[in-house]
Each structure stands twice: as C-alpha cells, then as structure tokens.
C-alpha cells in the first residue's frame, strides 16, 4: 500500500554482496537479493511509511522498477543508493556526454511505497527488456 512518495537523487555503485553474488553467478537468488534493492536513510523511510524489506517503486522519466527498501543510516537526506546492476540501469538513460559513459552516479527519481508488491527476478527483467517493455 502506498504511503506517498519522495524525490531523491539515487546513486549506484559496488557493494560487497553485489561483488560476491556476481562472482557466484548472475542467474542466482543471491545476485537478485544483492542488486534489487534501494538503500535509503531513516528520514526517507519514515516519509514513505515503510520498514526495512518493504517493496518500493523507483521511478524516472524512462520507467519504473520494484526493488526492496534497505535502511542505510549513513545516507544523507535526499539521497538513495542502488547497487550497480540491471535494476538501476533499467531506469538510466543512455546519454554519455560523448564520452561513452552514462550518468551512473546521479539519477533523479521518485520513490513510492509498495508494500507487498512483487520484485521481478533477473530472468523476468531480462525478458522484459527483450520485449522492449
């Protein structure tokens, strides 16, 4: 159930779990658990009325994706973090400023609570991209 939404800057990057899961294999539950999440501070979670582990919808102008909310007390207000991987990249545009490098580090998003909503598996996400959805 939605409890409103917040606008934040989301950045992406490496995590130890993402690295370990990537080495184990991308088509594993470990990988999905490591990358299909959005870390946010306690203020953001309170504003959304959600708890650790609830599903949230992260939305940009390009699309939206469901991921699991994770409390990270060290994140400043107005900032969220999604580990690098397909869930973050689904929201990312391809503009590279003519360098080859997309803007992985600062994406303006809207986060909405969606407690209980399903998170797509890595395979389902691949299929979705294959179908151009």
């Amino acid at each position, binding site marked *: 159930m939605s409890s409103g939404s917040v606008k934040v*800057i989301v950045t992406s*990057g490496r995590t*130890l779990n993402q690295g370990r899961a990537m080495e*184990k294999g991308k088509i594993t539950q470990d990988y999905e658990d490591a990358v299909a999440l959005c870390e946010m501070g306690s203020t953001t979670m309170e504003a959304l009325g959600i708890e650790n582990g609830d599903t949230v919808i992260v939305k940009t102008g390009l699309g939206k994706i469901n991921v699991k909310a994770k409390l990270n007390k*060290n994140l400043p207000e107005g*900032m969220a973090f999604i580990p690098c991987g397909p869930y973050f990249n689904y*929201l990312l545009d391809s503009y590279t400023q003519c360098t*080859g490098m997309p803007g992985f580090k600062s994406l303006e998003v809207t986060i909405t609570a969606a407690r209980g909503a399903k998170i797509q598996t890595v395979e389902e996400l691949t299929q979705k991209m294959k179908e151009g959805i």
Partner: protein
Amino acid sequence: MTEVGNTFKDIVCTFCGCLCDDIIIEVDGEKIVKNTNGCAISKERFVGHMENRCLQPTVKGNPVTLEKAIQRAVEIIASSKRLLIYGLSSTENDAQREAYRLAEITGSVVDNTTSVCHGPTILGAQESGETTAALAEVRHRADLVIYWGANPAAAHPRHIPHYIRQPGEYIKDPKKDRQIWLVDVRETTTTRMVDRFLKINPATDLEVIQTLRALIRGTKLDVTEVGGIDIKELEEIATAMKTAKYGVLFFGLGLTQSWGRHRNIDAAIRLIQDLNAHTKWGLMPMRGHYNVSGANKTSTWVTGYPYAIDFARGYPRFSPGEYTAVDMLARGEPDAMLNIAADPVAHFPRAAVAHLASIPVINIDPKFNMTSQLAEVNIPAAIAGIECDGAATRMDGLPLYLKKVIDPPDGVIPDRDILRMMIKSLEKVMK
C-alpha cells in the same frame, strides 16, 4: 616451486585490479575447496567457480557441439555489416589480442568495458598526462593516501589491508606514519577504515578539485564553502597535501561516472601536477575488472588506442562517444555483437540493452549471465587464472602471470582458443 600436492601457492586472484598474488588455493579432485588470503569476493570466485556454469554451447537455446556453435557465430559475423566486439576485461591478454585480430579482419568496432568504468580516466590522461606510481612504491613511501569517489572496502576489499595499511621501507608504522583519507558523497564501509572522511556534495568534485588547485597555488578565494566543505577546512587540506612527503590519490568511479566525467580526471591530474611543484604526488585509478587495465594496454599495443576502436576503413580509428559500446547500441548501429567476458545486459542502460536484444549476439563467458539469456549463440569458456593460464595487468600497470590450478570442465576451452577457432573459420569464409 609453488605446488605442493594439491596446494597452490602465490596464485594471482582474478577478481579486481589489485591482482593480489599471495592467494593459496587447495584443490580436492575436481573441486577447489579452499582459498586462503583472498577476500570474500575472491573466495567466491575460486571456491564457487563451478556455480552457475554454462557447460554446453547453445544456438537459440538448443545444445550444440562447440564446432556447430563456432559455425553459427562465424555465419553471424560474416553476414554482419557493423559488428560490435565488446567486453574483454575479465579475460587474459592473449584472448584480447585475438579479439583485436578478429576486429581487424572483419572491419568491426572493438570496445572494452573501460568505456563504462575508467574511460574518462584515459581521456583525462590523454589531455593532461599521467603521474603514476607502483603499488609497492605507495606502500614503501606514501605518508598521505587519499581515496576519492572510491569504495575499496566493497570493490577492492584488500586494497587497504594488503597494499596501504602495511609497513614499508620508509613507513615503519602504517597506522601512525601514514594518513588515509576518503572523499565521497556518502559514508560507505570504507569510511570506517580511514583516518579522515570528507563528505562533499554530489556533482561538485570538479569544483572541489579546482578549489584545492587554487589554494595550493596560493590564491585567496572569496567564498565560505565549496562542495559542502568549509573553505578553512579546504585550506587546511591543501596545506596538508603540499606538506606531505609522498602523496597518492586513488580515485574511483565516483569521479569518472559523475557529472564532469573526464573533466574531473583532467582536473585531478592537474592537481597532482601542481602538487609536484612542492612535493611528490602520484595518482592511480582503482581499476575494477581484473584485466581491464590489460585490455587498455593490449589494445594500445596492437591498435594504437585503448578502447572504442573502429576498423571499418581497414585501419584503427578512435572515437569515444562514437565507437563506445553504449553509444553505438543506443544509436541502433550494430547489426550483430560478439561479447567476450562481460555482461552488457546487466550493466548497460535500458536503451542500449533494447537494441542489443534486437540483434544476434554471440556470448562467450564461463557462467550464465544476463547477456546469455538474450544471446543467439552461447559458448562456455575456461576461467583464466583458475582453469587456464594467461597474463593480466594490475591497476598500476604491472603485468602478472596467471596460473592454472584446475582443469576446465570437459570440452570447455579458453577464450583465446575459441576466438582462434572463429578467426580460422572466418579467414576461410572471407577469402
């Protein structure tokens, strides 16, 4: 002698650009059972090397022989008008060389994963030069180490404990004699490992670096803060950097992927150049994939350019933004793709993946990945540094020999041999 029974010593870890070369691997029959000295990710890489493995070549999801898979791959390549060859940073140098050969004979574009990690680092260095150092030199001499936009605790877990928090020839006590600072837009796990954390506002790296340059040159600035840091603190930082005996700036994707891209790196290099008027400083990119540094080097040796190379005119041309994989795919330009030891479907923006999904893809990788879910042809490969030998380049440019510790699964061969089979077959087809 490094092998005693089933224990292999001084093994190089092929996960990140640290290429830690003190790993001890124990093998029991056909399994790796223990990794000593490796980080958590290294342990997963070695002990879990058989998990999620692709063991059988497939064409359109149907199991085929290796020869049949090569035959279909060659058909796709030969009929392609604009082939994109991509990946190469998680494989060894010989495989990279074969990929450039394939690009040359087919008039293709060849790009490596540098374009989405430290490509801007190379652009910055092409503009401003490079002041670098060996990791051993850093350990022996550096009294001030700064990480900027990097999270080594997650991405290079042994960088600090293995290379930096170690005593050296002139740094007897690494906790007392060496300061480690971190500059980032958020607190990360690395924050707990350093002596000082400087939080800057997102997308202000360029301003902060340029401010430090101005302060180091003695300019008085009429501002109270830059990037969220008080100007007094920046003045103190500038003085500390000037008075260090030997400083090193390690930087990560927080600098290359954020607003400013190569201009951030250009500024960082010039900051180091400025500091060298006063003392000794170097800088080094925190290279991610274990041989992405090697991909740049082998590409430069062979083609003259480090990445984003087009052979369409029969000779190599370099143009980031044009021949880089994300830009090419987002423009809908390639009509086929050969992907080697990378996973663009997991790591590229959606529009690039959408085009990738619409063209025939040949995917060479030891494991199932997201690209293998879309690829028409999947060919399993041996893992370099575990199941076959090779050479790779550490983040500081040091080449290291990768040893084989266990046989690959039956019928699975190294990337270089797969590419050689393709080239041999292509040379017949293209005569």
